[in-house]
């Protein structure tokens, strides 16, 4: 059976979501041979303000790189969450920044709340790597791309001299995801 995974990373301009999208797409395409496309907000909408980046992964050819039925939505702002949650599949995953998204929409999808930006700021000391923290969480939660591929892709995309801090941010994301998964498993009704 063919596999296809659509993800959208959304938030504000300046949060590095386009870069995050490229990293995930390249990790899949270059290091795992999965078909991948990546697209991003464009035109006047990309001039500051809202920002989104989309990744489609598939083992078949991808007809068109536009995500329409999301398997995963990352929302780093309330606005982005409100705007895009309607595109999430009932079986999808909603990952929100728990500080920025206070009104988390209800739905059949699975929801994870994590202090992505705060984690980057307080644990790593640089808010700018919040996108890499998010990549870490997504990698562990989505289980589509291997960690090592993502590490390689991160190293390929981040500026020289910042490799270490970015890898630390990635590890932080992975450990945050572990906690989220453990919490989810501990919920009543969880298998």
């Amino acid at each position, binding site marked *: 059976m063919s596999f296809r995974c659509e993800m959208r990373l959304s938030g504000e301009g300046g949060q590095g979501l386009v870069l995050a999208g490229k990293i995930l797409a390249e990790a899949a395409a270059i290091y795992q041979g999965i078909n991948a496309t990546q697209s991003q907000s464009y035109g006047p909408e990309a001039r500051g303000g809202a920002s989104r980046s989309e990744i489609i992964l598939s083992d078949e050819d991808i007809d068109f790189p536009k995500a329409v039925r999301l398997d995963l939505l990352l929302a780093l702002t309330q606005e982005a969450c409100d705007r895009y949650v309607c595109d999430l599949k009932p079986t999808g995953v909603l990952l929100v920044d728990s500080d920025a998204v206070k009104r988390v929409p209800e739905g059949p999808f699975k929801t994870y709340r994590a202090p992505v930006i705060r984690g980057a700021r307080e644990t790593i000391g640089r808010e700018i790597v919040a996108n890499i923290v998010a990549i870490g969480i997504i990698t562990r939660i989505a289980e589509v791309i291997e960690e090592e591929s993502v590490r390689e892709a991160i190293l390929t*995309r981040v500026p020289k001299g910042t490799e270490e801090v970015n890898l630390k941010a990635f590890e932080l994301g992975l450990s945050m995801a572990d906690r989220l998964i453990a919490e989810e498993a501990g919920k009543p009704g969880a298998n």
Partner: protein
Amino acid sequence: MLRYFRRLEERSQELGNHRRKHVHAVDKHGRLLIDRLEESGLFDRVHLRQPAQDPSAEMDAVLEAGRDIEEKLALLGTYYSIQFLQMNIRSIDLLRLDASGARDRTGVCRDFIRGVGDDFLRLIGGYMTRVLDLSFGDEPRPGFVVCSVGTRLHQDDVDLGIIDDGSKARVNLNRAIAKTAREMMRYASVPDFYLSEHVGAEGYTVSIDEYRRRLDKKILDFVSVTEILSVYPLVGSQALFDRFRRRIIGRYYYRPRGENREHEGYLRGLLGEIESLMLWPHEPERIHPKEDLLRLVGAIVSAYRCVYRIEESDRWEAMRLLGKKVRLYREELASLEKNYTYVETFRHLYQAFSAQKEEIDLVDPVEQNTLQQVALTMGYEDVGVIRAREQLLVRYFQHVRHGRQTVRALVPLLSEHIRKTSVFSAWMRPEAPDEAPVPKKNLPIDFLRHVRYFEGIKYWNDLLEAIENERGDLLDQFLSDMLALDEPHREQILKYYAHWGYQTFYTLERLMVAFGRNTRKRGAREVFEGLNRAFLDTVRGTPDDIRRLATVFVHYPFMTYRYLTLMDDRSLAEFHSKLGGEVWDAQAGRWRDWLVRLCEILRRSSRFFRRSIDRVCENHPEYLLYFGDLKKLDRIAKGILADLLRLPSHELQKKELGAYYDLQFLRIGLATLQGMPLSQLDAEFTEFADYFLEILFDVCKAEVDAEQGRRLLTHDLLALFVAGGHARERAHQDDYDLVVLLNSDSDDVHEYTNQIITRLNREISRRGIMPQYHLADRFGSFVTRFSELENFLSGEGKTSYVDMSQLLGARQIVGSSRLEAEFNRRIIEGCIYENKEIYMVSVIGEIESRRSFMGEQCKGPEFDIKECRGGLRDLEMGMLLWKVMYRIRDPIGGRFWDVLAERCPGQRWEFKELKESYQFLNRLRDVYRLSVAPVNVLNPAFMGRPAELLGYRSGDGLSAGEKLFRDHSKHCNRVAESLDRLIRDAVKFEGGTSPPEGRAEALDR
């Protein structure tokens, strides 16, 4: 050969991390590539150690060497990666060579950057052609052309626009593109298909007919149009490309006798973009070459290309052709090209050495190293302690600043072009007498119909100017058409306007101000309120909303201020509350704080205080940004004062002196609202108010001297005194009580000095302060002679205790100390102290009669803070009484209570309490003036704002205002009781207060 790959890998270390993808490809398939080339005898036809002259031909050889499709794709990708690394290393080596010691650095940069663009296009074009070919296989192919769009320099991702002929075989094309995209993601640059996505295509490709149908409905956003205008065919049919150019691109060029709707929409989009980029918040410690300059240049060049029909899509070539065609701006275009070349080279090198990112953090040591690498490559060297990167940044900022100025200078031509060619131009043009009026249905609705096509456009300055034009009838018609709609319909239309304006806060705020400030026009207020309601409902207070509102404020502070002052209290509070959320950008955060401060001040301030803001900020809107930095306002004010004497005319000096006064008045008002201690407020207010009078007198005198061609020395002859609140050194006085005394009986000198004071009077009035001349009312001239005053006070005329009080409280501002001594001897001692019993009886009588009168008057909840029992007038009267009684020369005011406490140690606690009450009441009066209204009759219902400013909080069943009112009553009662007791004791001590026989009648109460 493998050793050579290792060397290539080592050599590429100086490139950014993006090289790793290509190194990975070489590691993975490099061995296989060599093997296959050797096996097939094609090794000599391929360059692996150096950049290829003809990469396309070598790619064919690589494909020939591969055994199956998968292998061919892998080998081709590996060859691409090798060439990509070679190309970049070589171009940088060449730049280093050319830039070292080059006199024309821009020329070197130009050769480099254009060469890099051409090389890259050749490489990626050749690669794509072959991958696409393999991906098609034997499937039927439609007519198609794959175009590169956007900049040719960007190696990180390649923006592609794919046009097909709309035939059934496009399915195969889409499939082939999908495969090609996959390969590009693995080995080359990531392809982006924004254009197809944006036109609403179902696949990667779009036909010309699909473009046409889409464009007939709605304008494309300006970014997509800019991409379309920059298309360059990489692979496929030149004929199809030419057809695309004629039928789609041609729509955006100006047609003197044709339909220009798309052209206009695009230009409006670009001008909106230029305005936005000019206003964008810039972090001081970061640079962003794209937003700093490159986008601006892209926008202005595209706009000019469309106006002048320059089809050349290469930006350098387009600028060269424009320079030839637009003679008026030839120099500007040439210099802009230099700025563009420099910044583009800078950006390219930074990305080559670091990563494909746009924003550069100047304080980050890693980024600083990269910048040093860029600087050395561009030919800069460390000089002493000055690092090469510092020289680079200096030049970068110069290019950016100059480039932005040039772009600004190139905008008016475009604005004028739009004004003349717009579909709205008939609305804006004044009708000629013999011209039939342009039929307009309902203007607001008609406009919405038009703008539906222009969705996303931010530039509407031409229409806004026409609406603001007081001689035009556009505003009247707009308002009357709006009022002609029934209420639900009008509400709906206003919502559409708010929705439209949500994309451009600047335009909407400006439009609302145009409505709101024309209060005399029928419907203006109503439309303002309706539109503002709809706008406030639309704005959600997201980080982006906040940043945009703050950005509009910082660049158009007075317009924003106007808009805020047009709102009622509730709307202003709502607007204020929307600014409370998170903001991402630190600079935007600072700007937001400034806007929040203004909102806070406006929410606390009276119309009286807003008038003082109007007076200052209409000419200096930037001061609105400094409301949180009162020291800065003080420095500016002192600078104005310092500059005064350098000004060439008395008129200018008076004007600037007025500006000094207004600014200081505003500053003290802001300080009051921000809780500056009363004693400091009074001292600072008195200082600048005294300065103002002193200097104004000198300027007016010099003006009279110049006109009369003579100079009379008046230092020992003329004394200017302030009386009343100014004399008591109290802040926030909105009138000046002036006493002008002349120690000469000469009619000539009297006439001369009167002329000076006449001018002085006029200038003071211009500040919105009413000068009062109590004595002038009696003597019929601004200037009163000492002799006249002596005669008057010695009983020949009717004397009033008010005259005496004014003189007793007077403080000299202009005149010599000899004159002051003369005044004290002849007037204060000779005429008042000599008759102190009469004066004291009058004061006591006045206190009693006023209390009884005010008791009758004050039936309602309002109270007069000055005249009520125990109010400020009682305190002032008390001070005058003691001043006369003890012959104290100190001015009455806050410090006078300390003098009294010293003089009467037995009552020092009571004087201390009176001082506290004096300060409390004055503070309350000041705050009420600034936050509610400049009146003495205070209304308990409006005590909320002053209470908040004075630090009261609600609790114990009372609101903050009620608590303040309670404290006010306590103070007044305490003052009344203390004063009564102290005055009674003092009078007893003096031995009675009966005035001498016959003198009492002379007192005119």
